[in-house]
């Protein structure tokens, strides 16, 4: 598909409709187009470049429901100059949006299969659109399993939704934290330890992983041990990005450009690169 986009470097203004506090340093901002009517079609797993007036731009994955393109949600953790400025914005403020960019999760390809989603930390954000899609077409899929690991119970994202999903009979949701105080009654440990505790049909399972690279590395091994084929495992990569349109060269991952070929990769296509140091 070849589309010549005339001015993909120009941000479009969006208004902050709502700002939700997820954890002490992580917020979800809901954006609506300033000219009202326009929707913002995207696929689960894609990202936008968010521009804060005079501060700069950051790539943030879209965490809202792809079937509701009028309301765009982004969940960001305040770690750098731009994300700090982003999360200081208030309801009614305007920011710039460029996108959506990149590849998406194999939502269509997974039809008829079991699905295992493994997320670490803020890696749950790009997974939420997938979960929305699966839930709204629940009968098209086999088992749907979400394994989610965070540092502490306080760092868990989307707590209300997690509880809602966990309460459903047709979803299996397991949550684990690295460390917790005495009043945590849930699992403690790394997310990979949840994998032996779930059951799925390994030959008909699509796995999707998003989290820190080291977490993805060990999760991969564990899933491969269960017998999931490389071509059915998908990971979301992160690299520095400036343009989002494959022209600035920053997001190179071996021969791949994360902004164009990724961020979602089929593991089979990057197995030679994945896990190599400093690539």
């Amino acid at each position, binding site marked *: *598909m*070849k*589309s*010549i*986009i*005339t*001015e*993909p*470097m*120009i*941000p479009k*203004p969006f208004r902050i409709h709502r700002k939700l506090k997820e954890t002490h340093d992580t917020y979800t901002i809901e954006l609506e187009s*300033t000219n009202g009517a326009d929707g913002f079609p995207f696929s689960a797993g894609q990202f936008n470049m968010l521009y804060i*007036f*005079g*501060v*700069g*731009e950051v790539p943030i994955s879209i965490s809202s429901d792809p079937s509701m393109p009028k309301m765009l949600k982004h969940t960001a*953790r305040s*770690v*750098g100059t731009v994300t700090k400025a982003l999360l200081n914005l208030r309801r*009614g*403020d*305007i920011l*710039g949006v460029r996108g959506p960019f990149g590849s998406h999760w194999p939502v269509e390809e997974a039809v008829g299969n079991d699905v295992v989603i493994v997320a670490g930390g803020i890696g749950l954000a790009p997974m939420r659109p997938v979960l929305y899609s699966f839930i709204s077409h629940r009968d098209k899929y086999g088992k749907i399993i979400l394994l989610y690991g965070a540092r502490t119970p306080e760092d868990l994202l989307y707590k209300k939704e997690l509880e809602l999903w966990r309460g459903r009979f047709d979803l299996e949701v397991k949550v684990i934290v690295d460390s917790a105080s005495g009043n945590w009654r849930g699992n403690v440990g790394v997310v990979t330890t949840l994998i032996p505790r779930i059951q799925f049909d390994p030959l008909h399972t699509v796995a999707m992983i998003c989290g*820190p690279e080291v977490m993805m590395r060990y999760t991969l091994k564990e899933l491969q041990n269960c017998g999931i084929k490389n071509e059915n495992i998908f990971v979301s990569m*992160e*690299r*520095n990005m*400036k*343009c989002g*349109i*494959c*022209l*600035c*060269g*920053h997001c*190179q991952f*071996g*021969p791949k*450009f994360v902004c*164009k070929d990724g961020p979602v990769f089929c593991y089979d296509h990057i197995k*030679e690169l994945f896990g*190599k*140091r*400093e*690539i």
Partner: protein
Amino acid sequence: MNIAILECDHLQILLDVLRKRGYQVIGPTLGEGAIVYSDLNSTANLPIGWTDEQDGGTYRLKKRNDKALFGYTVGPHSWKKYLLPSELRLWKIKRNGVSFQIVTENEATRKFAFVGVRSCDIHAISVQDKVFMNGQYIDQHYTSQRKDTFIVAVNCGKAGGTCFCVSMNTGPKATFGFDLAMTEIIEGKNHYFLVETGTELGAEIFREIPHKQANEKEKCAADDILRKTAEQMGRSMDTSNIKDLFYRNHEHPRWNNVAERCLTCANCTMVCPTCFCTTVEDVTDLMSEHAERWRKLDSCFTMDFSYIHGGSVRASTKSRYRHWITHKLATWIDQFGTSGCVGCGRCITWCPVAIDITEEVHAIRESETVIGKQKTIVKEDIHANTGTLSGRTSFFKRP
């Protein structure tokens, strides 16, 4: 293809015709102690009678004993100075109550005529064309600048000390991508150019300049010059299976060796005619009412280049050099279907510590064959029970 003779004195007419047609004529001039690209209104501004001496980390201007107009090779500049400017404002933005308004740049693009483009640089321009004009997204600025560029190629009458276009199959003769291509010939008192037209526009412009048909003798003279140039290459590189060579050797002791020398100064990426990486910078006025976004050339040798939350992906010098050379010679082929190296030798000349891309390729390739040979020797030793491996222990010693 029409081949004609242009007397040296008539070159000025070509420049005048180009200017009359609205081109900003750019060509090699003397400046900053080197041969650099700049506005060229008169042939008198060409580095007449000068040449350059190049080697790893060395560049010197030297007088020639003739009045050659193009008797040198490439300097620190490349044509990306004009096609991919080091600084470019992408847009301005004005705060408008709670909203903002973006003003895109409406700069009238200039029509460039590049005079004296070497074959390696034509290849470099064609490599950048693939990056900026062939993908899913198009670079607007580059494309608009590029489509009006008139190219007068000059075939190299001498090779530089760091040149290896013959190895990369990119020279010394320009074979495509030009409107006019000239070979400078000096035979005693005769000083003329053998001119080949590459495009209809080139032919049209050339018709306005006094010229005569070339005879066989003159054509042979040009061929001889190019043959000699091809034999003079200062460097060479074995490019067979080069992509796999790098993919195989992501871990190799040579990377540590080169990291001991590399200063991560980014000179190689700045002088490279194909390096295209850019970053963006946002600036505001003091009132925070106006802001601007600038695109600036960037280099994969900086720490910031690969920074993501938690640290830089390529923190070590070794990984940054490896990324650069692997991109040039291997991953570029997967990305754009062509090598990212055109054999111009600039990165060798302008590296302050004379790191040599051809030497690094050679070292990695050699180490494989030496290790291969060593394995065979060991095998033979087992059978013959004689011989030693002495002198084979320091494959990766610094040259």
